[in-house]
């Protein structure tokens, strides 16, 4: 229902192309997508049926973190509650299921990604070419729409399994 409200509020804004609204809409959509991704990913260390919270770490995108925290209140994905954690530059990138690295931290993206090593963390970025740096999912804006691209090798290396449904709706899937 929250998504419906969100879309109702945001999409006309996109259509109108007003820059302030566009920025806010893009941010909201990305926030929504972030937690929705959780429904299409299987983590190797989490048994099916677990009710452990899914922790989403947000780095370098405070507005998105704020939005995400708002929309995920009371929400579950596969019966798992969602916990949003805003990360500082020095914070360890452990105990995360999803890590979003905002455009603000784009400069040290390779460094940040490598810091996560091969741990099963779904890394999401919003920087063009980020997939080559080891990101699994990267937001791209195509026209006025927020789309994303996926790198299957990155997911494989982190032992993440992405559902075919997610792959189907991705703008592009890199398979090697």
């Amino acid at each position, binding site marked *: 229902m929250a998504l419906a409200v969100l*879309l109702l509020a945001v999409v006309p804004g996109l259509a109108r192309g007003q820059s302030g609204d566009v920025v806010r809409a893009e941010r909201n959509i990305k926030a929504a997508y972030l937690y929705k991704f959780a*429904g299409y990913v299987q983590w190797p260390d989490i048994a099916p049926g677990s009710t452990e919270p899914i922790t989403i770490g947000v780095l370098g995108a405070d507005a998105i973190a704020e939005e995400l925290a708002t929309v995920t209140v009371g929400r579950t994905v596969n019966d798992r509650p969602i916990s949003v954690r805003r990360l500082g530059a020095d914070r360890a990138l452990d105990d995360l299921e999803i890590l979003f690295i905002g455009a603000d931290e784009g400069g040290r993206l390779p460094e940040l990604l490598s810091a996560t090593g091969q741990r099963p963390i779904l890394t999401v970025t919003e920087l063009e070419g980020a997939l080559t740096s080891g990101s699994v999912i990267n937001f791209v804006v195509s026209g006025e729409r927020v789309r994303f691209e996926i790198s299957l090798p990155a997911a494989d290396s982190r032992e993440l399994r992405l559902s075919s*449904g997610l792959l*189907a709706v991705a703008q592009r899937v890199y398979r090697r």
Partner: protein
Amino acid sequence: MSSRQTSVHRKLLFVVLATTAAALAITGAAMVFYDLRTFRDTWIADLTAQADILGQAAAPALEFEDPTSAHAYLALLRAKPDIMGAAIYTSKGTMFAEYSASPHAEIEFPKLPDLDGSRTVRNGLELFKRIVNDDEILGTVYIKARYPIVERLTNYLGIFGAVMVLSLIASVLISRQLQKSITQPILEIAAVARGVVERRDFESRANKTTSDEIGVLVDAFNGMLSELGDRTRTLEKSNRDLEHEVGERTRAEQALQTLNAELEERVAARTTQLEAANKDLEGFSYSVSHDLRAPIRAISGFCTLLIEDHKDKLDAEARRKLDIIAAEAGRMGRLIDDLLAFSRLGRKALEPADLDMAELARSTFERLRRADGAKPVEFRLSSLPHARGDRSLFEQVWINLLSNALKFSSKRDSPLVEVGGISEESEVIYFVRDNGAGFDGKYAPRLFGVFQRLHNDTEFPGTGVGLALVHKIVTRHGGRIWADGKLGEGATFHFTLPKETADGRV
């Protein structure tokens, strides 16, 4: 095969066919109803599953707003040609993706999605199915599919019709064989019954082939037939006896008639003989009388001459004896005249005329009184009916009856002669009454014979022919005559004449 036999066959066949058809129709209707319901349920369940799969597949597309992949999923429906069209709506109710099987037939998709469920529309079935993920409604799948219930029903009816036809044919074939056990004995009874009616054949018997009700019927029929045969034979025998008896009676009657005819012939012959004899007798008496007349006249005449010419020479005694001879000769002459008149009556043809009987009676009475004239006589004459008869003969009747009355009453102090008549329905009756000597009633039948006299000739002279003459005249005119009286108390003579018939004959 007669129409009656056909009718039994047909009726049984009709029963079998009607039963079969009814059973088939009920079974068929139940099966069709059940199948169509099942078909609908299955079809809806199938489409619901389809919608579910579609929804689950399209869930990411909705979540990540990717109509392209939703379109791709919808396009997979091409594998199911029964689905005419489908659409996916967002949770807001706006159209997200749509698909129609035929690019030409544009499908009118609903503006807004409906609640979960299905409904039949004009040309198919519509179904809505919500897409739910983690208790969140992501959108709605809409499917419009063909609902080939009419085709299915038509197919069913076709199959049902074929089954019906085959079943009925089978029923006809089977029942034709099985019927024989029922109809054969009945037909046999019918054949025997027809034999009875048409040929009066009471000897045939129906064969008993079964021991069921038809067997009982056959037994009863045979029993009745034998009873009927017995009765018919008895009746025919009694008829023959009766015919024989009637024949005998007819023969007896014929014999009797023959006998009667013979008898009549013999009577007629005898009558003819008698009439001839009578005629001969009359002829004889006429000629005798006629021949006697001349000698008597001679005797009478010569007596008169003797008395007149030789009066002086005869003494008193001779004269007395001559007078007696003359008187006797005169009497003999009168007797012969009377006899001649009587016998002439048998030969004379009647000359009928209208007679004024009162006038006739009066003139006759007066003539008689003039001839006799001595003593006064009271004469009572009432009005007499007219009659039809021979005038001269009836003058004779009145002369005889009235002279008799005068003669026999002449010795009374105051003689009375009364004449009367009355007209009855078919005859007229006349009577002449006097207060004279009368007669003994027991001699009445003898009064009218020739020469029959009840009184002494010296007391009341007469020839004894008069009443016989009257009797003969009246009888010849078809009338009757009779007399009654008592000795010393007068006598009454009645005679009748038949009334004139229409053709003037008496």
